[in-house]
């Protein structure tokens, strides 16, 4: 395994705001990474920095061992699909797919044609006239068919329906199996992609909160549910990630539990349930406590 992306102490400031704040991480070759976080957390800025579209205020970036800024040798191996991609005025989808192979050496036209059929994308309609979902489909098709060794998807499927999203996940996994490459996917639909991800990066307010293997992350938190007294006693000496309460009941999210912990919880009559990746991200990047009155559901 070798690092495709290496960032150290990466910082990007815009005036008073620090969009990316002293982030260091590396991305291993041929893995699917999830880049998760709330709106405005700095995901897009981070991806713009990694693809040479934006300029770091401080810190260093290495993509395929080199600085990506204005480096065509690096960039031709990179494909960056973003939700807000702008297209030339009067362009039709067919112009995009005609020109893509000139820029992406690994472009697979047959695969692109298949995806165009899958997404039912009209090729001869002006891009300004397309629906939001069809616009997203263009990006998704370019991102998949370009087969760039390093592909970024930034919120690639705004407006895509559930069927189209499933097609995207299926084709991505399928093609990733045949042509392994490094994929960095930023999304809000965490539950939908959680089985896809091999590694997870979570950022909030420009800071990197989590940089962990998806598998170990899935078991890293547990929700303990039971009577308030029982739960309080159980979690007394633990770090609490999140707490919900309804009347005499409490639901508290804590970190990783050992088998002994689990046995003890069972003895105390407490219920344990795994925390999904989405819940974990919500707990880590949202508010930490909610106490709700009886009539409200937690």
């Amino acid at each position, binding site marked *: 395994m070798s690092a495709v992306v290496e960032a150290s102490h990466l910082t990007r400031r815009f005036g008073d705001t620090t969009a990316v704040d002293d982030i260091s991480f590396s991305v291993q070759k041929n893995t699917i990474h999830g880049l998760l976080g709330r709106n405005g957390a700095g995901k897009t800025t981070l991806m713009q920095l990694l693809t040479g579209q934006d300029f770091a205020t401080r810190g260093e970036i290495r993509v395929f061992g080199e600085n990506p800024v204005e480096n065509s040798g690096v960039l031709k191996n990179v494909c960056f699909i973003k939700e807000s991609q702008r297209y030339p*005025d009067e362009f039709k989808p067919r112009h995009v797919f005609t020109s893509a192979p000139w820029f992406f050496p690994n472009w697979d036209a047959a695969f692109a044609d298949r995806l165009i059929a899958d997404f039912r994308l009209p090729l001869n309609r002006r891009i300004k006239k397309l629906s939001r979902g069809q616009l997203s489909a263009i990006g998704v098709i370019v991102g998949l068919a370009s087969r760039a060794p390093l592909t970024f998807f930034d919120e690639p499927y705004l407006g895509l329906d559930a069927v189209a999203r499933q097609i995207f996940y299926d084709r991505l996994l399928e093609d990733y*199996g045949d042509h392994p490459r490094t994929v960095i996917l930023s999304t809000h639909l965490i539950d939908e992609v959680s089985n896809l991800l091999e590694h997870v990066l979570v950022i909030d307010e420009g800071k990197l909160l989590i940089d962990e293997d998806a598998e170990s992350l899935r078991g890293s938190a547990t929700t303990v549910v039971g009577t308030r007294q029982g739960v309080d006693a159980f979690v007394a000496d633990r770090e609490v990630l999140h707490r919900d309460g309804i009347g005499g009941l409490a639901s508290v999210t804590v970190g990783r539990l050992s088998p002994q912990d689990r046995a003890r919880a069972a003895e105390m009559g407490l219920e344990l349930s795994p925390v999904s990746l989405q819940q974990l991200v919500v707990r880590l990047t949202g508010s930490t406590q909610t106490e709700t009155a009886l009539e409200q559901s937690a």
Partner: protein
Amino acid sequence: MSTVTRTAPTEPLADGHDAGNRILAVVRLHLVNRYSVFAVPWMIMGGIFIVNLTIWWIIFASVTNESDRADARDGISYSGALFYIFVYMLVLGIQAVAYTFPFALGFSVTRRDFWLGSALTFITLSAVYSAGLTILAAIEVATDGWGLGGTMFASFYFGGADASWLERFGLYFATYLFFYFVGAAIATIYQRWRNNGMLALFGTLGLVLIAGIALVSFTSSWPAVGAWFDANGPSGVIAWSLAPTAIAAITGYFILRRATPKN
């Protein structure tokens, strides 16, 4: 993933050999939508030409006295009808940076390759369109103004009826280049500094203009300015436009080198 055979990993390709290919790819990208780049300008030109032709015909039909006709022909030779086509090129220059630049960066093009490819595109298109105008001007002169004494292509500003084809081609070419590069350079300022850049640009241009007028007025130099235009003639002025064109081409490059496309 363990059941899937990993047959063909997408390995990063080595650098070097194809820097020129990336620049040519940008040229092709600019030209991929042939309708906007080739059909629309000639359609605009055709429309203007038909309107002019109609006006010439009206004049030709209603003015029968020979000396009055000569006067009318003289007036028509100052035709500015071609100006519209150059404005369209200014718009194409702006769009190249405003729309195609963010798109090209999405296709992993460097700013350097984008600007060089765009410059090559502008030069190529200028040459093609200038050749077309030169041919039309030759036809216009040969047919004595399309049989109606009209002037659109061989106008006073582009050497008049007596200019050689080479001179005419050069004048068209320089004019096209000016509008493409100035349009593109203005758009780079927007890409780099957004609205503040536009305000600063036009604010500065306004101040420079006023300062220039003040300078010329206070030093009573208007006759000298007039003499300069008179001495250079339209052809000379167009030749001088190569200076701002070159400045636009060079500053546009350096402005774009640090620009980040936003939505």
